């Protein structure tokens, strides 16, 4: 796998950056060779003998960095320079055999490609695959150094072989040593900065190691320059005309010039350059070795611990949820606790931090567990409390006299509101709604006591007044925390519809008479239970008629608050109940709950919302499947058409025949016109009409309600039909028709309202 990957990339040589960049690489290599080669010429004077071609030393660099494109650029330069050199000469091959050129080109390519091949072929220990050539660690510096040495030796050997051993062995060894030193100098002093520069360009970062290598190289270069100067001065002392003589020899103006120490000018010149390059090589190698040792120490003591520490902490952070053991972190960190000051400080801090996190986590777990336990217990408490409230609807499926529904929505887990209903005996239904002061667990506990006492006393057979008086006494016995409880308690005789009720500081009940609208009953209040012992409570009676509907609630309804702190209030409650038009207690409560939610919107619920609604249906024979519809219009003749359309529509849907429809519509018109003309005496007011149809006995019942002056049209004397039309009184005719054509006409004045009920069998 690794091998294939290396081969696939041609040991880092075969790269394609896009044609523009590839061409640029070729051009860069070409230009670089050109510049370096001219720099070498400048340094060595007219002919490069002492200093060899610098460009040769950076050849590996091109293969290393630019891949085949660098090699191509280098070959291109060599070809161009060779041709320009050979153009002046008569023989283009300079008298050398062709294979020599082929071999030398091959050796150049090999020389360029070898470093890259070696770099990718031998990944370092711990490396999955050799990384992109870079001197970011001391190991990479060593690798680069070794590769350079191998490459130079290989190249020199190959050149020697290709030159066919035309030099004597002793000379060859010396030459090789000289060349090796010079190549190595160049590879280090030019190659390394180029490599680092390239790395900076490529990665946009520079590692500590790269900085250090550069620093040591610059130091080396400075030291070499000083050393070089000293050697130069020494040489001049020995032979003041060294360079002058040497140039003369080169130009053929002089023969062999001997200097004082017995060397000739050429030898002296070579010795000068050789010693110079040896000094540089020694300096650079020593400094590089120092750098590598220093960096290895830094890496061992600083870099690697930090990297490892970071890995350990990352693992810790990742695995913390699964309970990563902090001891493991401590163990992994142990080797670094006694390293360099900063690293050991950091390690200790990390270990301490992990320990603290662990303690904190354990604390948090304890607290969370505790919280969960309390939450679970509150849940159970809430369930117990919920179970205490009758929750199966309809609660008395076999009792046709009543239709009952109730709901409680607690604000917190457990609340202080409750409702209750149960039959005291065959015919007496007890209804309770109550609200305990405060919220949460204390309220819930007090609620349980209150509810139990109320039920026990009621079942024992007391009237509401007696029950409240007794329960108040019992609650006051041990109520040091001064909690209290508002209660509305009513006992309904389902056979007669008589309701006896008492109110201990609770909200006013809302009553809807059959066919009427909901209105708050402002009955007399007694104080709440639990505050003062020995209080006497009062009760009142209310006669419920079939179809009447009683709605009870707690202050959670009227004091539901919207975001702007406005209260839902009693008026909105009445309005919402009337607008809803629902006739079924369950639907009515759900509809009201909807209205409250709509009003409150996103504001939090502060108090329990509890509602109880009972509809009295009366004795079984009167009940039956009924259809109901309502209309409420201003009592004005302009709305007559509306009323008539409503009536016709209802009658049609009830399957009423044309004759009955005729008489009923006439009756409706007469009654409505009567209300419109007289009820409000010219002032504005509404007329409500409730239409109901009992499918069983095919009875149409219509109830007309207005809040005008009390007036009973049925009590008017019968119009004197025997008189001649001229003497006839204007009014009275309409109601006469109604009375004559309807089966039953009944007038009531209830809760400030005129109620006229007509019934007709169809």
């Amino acid at each position, binding site marked *: 796998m690794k091998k294939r990957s290396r081969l696939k990339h041609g040991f880092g040589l075969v790269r394609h950056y896009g044609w523009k960049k590839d061409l640029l690489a070729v051009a860069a290599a070409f230009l670089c060779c050109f510049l370096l080669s001219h720099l070498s010429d400048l340094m060595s004077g007219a002919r490069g003998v002492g200093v060899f071609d610098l460009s040769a030393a950076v050849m590996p660099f091109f293969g290393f960095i630019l891949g085949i494109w660098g090699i191509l650029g280098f070959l291109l330069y060599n070809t161009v320079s060779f041709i320009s050199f050979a153009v002046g000469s008569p023989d283009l091959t300079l008298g050398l055999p062709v294979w020599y050129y082929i071999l030398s080109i091959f050796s150049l390519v090999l020389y360029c490609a070898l470093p890259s091949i070696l770099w990718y072929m031998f990944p370092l220990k711990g490396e999955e695959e050799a990384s992109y050539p870079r001197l970011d660690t001391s190991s990479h510096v060593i690798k680069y150094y070794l590769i350079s040495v191998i490459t130079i030796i290989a190249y020199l050997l190959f050149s020697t072989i290709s030159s066919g051993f035309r030099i004597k062995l002793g000379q060859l060894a010396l030459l090789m040593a000289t060349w090796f030193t010079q190549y190595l100098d160049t590879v280090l002093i030019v190659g390394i900065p180029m490599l680092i520069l390239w790395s900076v360009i490529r990665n946009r970062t520079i590692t500590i190691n790269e900085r250090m290598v550069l620093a040591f190289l610059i130091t080396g270069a400075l030291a070499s320059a000083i050393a070089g100067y000293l050697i130069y001065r020494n040489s001049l002392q020995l032979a003041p005309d060294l360079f002058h003589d040497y140039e003369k020899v080169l130009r053929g103006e002089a023969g062999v010039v001997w200097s004082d120490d017995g060397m000739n000018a050429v030898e002296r010149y070579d010795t000068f350059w050789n010693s110079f390059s040896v000094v540089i090589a020694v300096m650079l190698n020593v400094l590089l070795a120092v750098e590598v040792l220093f960096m290895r120490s830094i890496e061992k003591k600083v870099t690697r611990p930090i990297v490892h520490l970071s890995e350990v902490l990352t693992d810790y952070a990742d695995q913390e949820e699964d309970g990563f053991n902090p001891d493991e972190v401590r163990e992994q960190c142990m080797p670094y606790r006694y390293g360099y000051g900063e690293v050991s400080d950091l390690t200790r801090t990390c270990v301490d931090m992990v320990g603290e996190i662990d303690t904190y986590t354990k604390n948090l777990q304890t607290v969370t567990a505790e919280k969960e336990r309390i939450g679970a217990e509150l849940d159970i408490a809430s369930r117990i409390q919920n179970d205490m409230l009758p929750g199966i609807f309809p609660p008395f499926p076999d009792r046709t006299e009543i239709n009952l529904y109730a709901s409680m929505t607690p604000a917190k887990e457990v609340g202080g509101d409750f409702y209750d209903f149960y039959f005291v005996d065959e015919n007496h239904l007890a209804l309770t709604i109550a609200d305990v002061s405060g919220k949460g667990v204390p309220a819930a506990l007090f609620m349980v006591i209150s509810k139990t006492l109320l039920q026990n006393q009621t079942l024992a057979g007391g009237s509401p007044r007696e029950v409240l008086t007794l329960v108040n006494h019992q609650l006051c016995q041990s109520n040091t925390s001064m909690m209290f409880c508002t209660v509305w308690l009513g006992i309904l005789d389902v056979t007669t519809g008589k309701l006896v009720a008492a109110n201990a500081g609770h909200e006013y009940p809302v009553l809807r008479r059959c066919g009427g609208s909901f209105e708050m009953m402002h009955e007399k209040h007694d104080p709440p239970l639990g505050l003062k012992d020995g209080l006497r409570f009062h009760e009142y009676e209310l006669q419920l008629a079939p179809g009447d509907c009683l709605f009870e609630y707690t202050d959670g309804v009227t004091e539901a608050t919207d975001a702007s702190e406005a209260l839902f209030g009693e008026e909105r409650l009445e309005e919402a109940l009337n607008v809803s038009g629902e006739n079924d207690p369950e639907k009515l409560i759900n509809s009201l709950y909807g209205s409250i939610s709509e009003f409150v919107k996103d504001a939090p619920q502060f108090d329990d919302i509890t509602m109880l609604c009972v509809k009295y249906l009366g004795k079984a024979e009167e009940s039956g499947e009924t259809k109901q519809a309502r209309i409420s219009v201003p009592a004005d*003749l302009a709305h*007559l*058409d509306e009323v*008539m359309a409503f009536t016709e529509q209802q009658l049609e849907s009830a399957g009423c025949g*044309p*004759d009955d429809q*005729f*008489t009923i*519509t*006439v009756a409706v*018109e*007469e009654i409505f*016109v009567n209300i419109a003309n007289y009820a409000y005496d010219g002032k504005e007011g509404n007329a409500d009409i409730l239409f109901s149809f009992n499918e069983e006995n095919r009875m149409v019942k219509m109830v007309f309600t207005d809040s005008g002056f009390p007036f009973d049209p049925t009590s008017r004397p019968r119009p004197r*039909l*025997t008189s*001649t*039309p*001229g003497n*006839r009184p*204007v009014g009275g*005719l*309409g109601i*006469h*028709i109604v009375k*004559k*054509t309807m089966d039953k006409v009944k007038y009531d004045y209830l809760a400030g309202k005129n109620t006229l009920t007509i019934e007709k069998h169809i």
Partner: protein
Amino acid sequence: MTIQQTKDGETLTMAIEGRIDTLTAPELKTQIEGAIDGVMDLILDFSKVDYISSAGLRSLMTAQNWMDARDGSMVIRNASKNIQGIFKVTGLDSFLVLE
């Protein structure tokens, strides 16, 4: 409610169509009042009246009074069974002439 009037000498025939209720009854009264000058025989054709309430009855009684005052006659023709029922219930059948 629409009324079609046909005058033939002293006989006026008014064919009424639609509902005679509280809202339309005054219109009926006005139309009769405006048309009975010189009329001795008023014929009200109820074949297309499908509804009448007490307000309509009052208009009819007023018209009857007018005709009685000038010794003329008023006849209601083709009243439906239901409308006849109303006349009967109110006792108007004893004053009005129904044909």
